[in-house]
């Protein structure tokens, strides 16, 4: 357990700037800190550092998603109607009641809220990626910036097309398959269970579509991080 803690400390400390990493690990070995406590300390420092570097962009991304979600909430009935069409059809084909049940009064409102947030995520995805790009681009050369532009645009397009594909093709195909296995059971399909699955499915497929673009952006951010610690690498 202690070994695992120290391994985690070593691994996590790689996220720190090299000089700081040296000082922190040296301080820990000098003060003979307990492994668990040292792990929490390093975790705290790493989180503070990451939040400091991503904080503004993260905050803007959250604000973007929140505004887009608010906008989507206004059109909640249309969104539910569009997404629920396939579900209602599938339930009808399988001779199941398409009147979904709910156990608590808050669930219908919660469902609309979740759907709004999901749509907000899709609407705000270009802005979120733009913010991610801003946090990386400061450390890139002119050529790299130019080559990354299409990737940001393509990632947003892929994310949205992934969601569209999930709604129009994958979800209508997957639902009959999933529900057909429950024929021998008594169905009591609740709105929260049903829509949680659908929402996770749509966002999951959209993220899978976006993976190439995300990989490229992560690669760029790693390149920037390597460049920042350039002199240290050449020292070893």
């Amino acid at each position, binding site marked *: 357990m202690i070994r695992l803690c120290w391994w985690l400390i070593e691994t996590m400390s790689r996220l720190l700037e090299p*000089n*700081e990493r*040296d*000082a*922190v*690990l*040296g*301080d*820990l*070995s*000098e*003060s003979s800190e307990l492994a668990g406590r040292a792990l*929490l*300390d*390093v975790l*705290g*420092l790493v*989180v*503070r*550092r990451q939040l*400091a570097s991503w904080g503004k962009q993260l905050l803007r991304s959250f604000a973007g998603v929140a505004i887009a979600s608010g906008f989507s909430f206004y059109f909640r009935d249309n969104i539910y109607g569009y997404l629920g069409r396939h579900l209602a059809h599938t339930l009808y084909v399988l001779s199941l009641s398409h009147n979904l049940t709910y156990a608590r009064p808050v669930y219908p409102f919660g469902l609309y809220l979740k759907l709004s947030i999901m749509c907000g995520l899709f609407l705000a995805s270009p802005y979120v990626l733009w913010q991610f790009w801003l946090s990386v681009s400061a450390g890139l050369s002119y050529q790299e910036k130019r080559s990354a532009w299409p990737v940001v645009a393509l990632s947003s397009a892929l994310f949205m097309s992934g969601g569209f594909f999930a709604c129009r093709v994958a979800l209508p195909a997957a639902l009959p398959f999933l529900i057909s296995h429950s024929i021998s059971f008594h169905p009591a399909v609740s709105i929260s269970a049903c829509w949680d699955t659908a929402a996770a499915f749509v966002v999951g497929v959209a993220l899978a579509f976006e993976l190439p673009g995300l990989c490229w952006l992560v690669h760029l951010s790693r390149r920037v991080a390597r460049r920042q610690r350039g002199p240290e690498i050449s020292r070893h």
Partner: protein
Amino acid sequence: MLGEFEYLMLSASARLGEHAYGAAIRREIANSAGYRCSLGALYTTLDRLEKKGLIQTWMGEATAKRGGRRKRMVRVTAKGVRAAAAFYEVVARASRGVSWVRKPGAVQP
């Protein structure tokens, strides 16, 4: 105006003099103030103080005691000394005539 923790850090660094670095400052704060300061609080506060020009930091030599790792050495600047003195003055002035300030030689209840 300094924060309480910033003042503790400046005091600890000034007391340690040329031996002021991360682990030593933590020990000093634990001894003087009686509470454990986390690494996160220590290093982010060091950065903040350096940005304000109240301290100077640089990487020192590696020692075997530290597993061959280097220290982040700290020195309080003249501006830092002035800021700490001003903070102390404010606390001393604000505490004058307050019942919880112990008079020299008085027995604690």
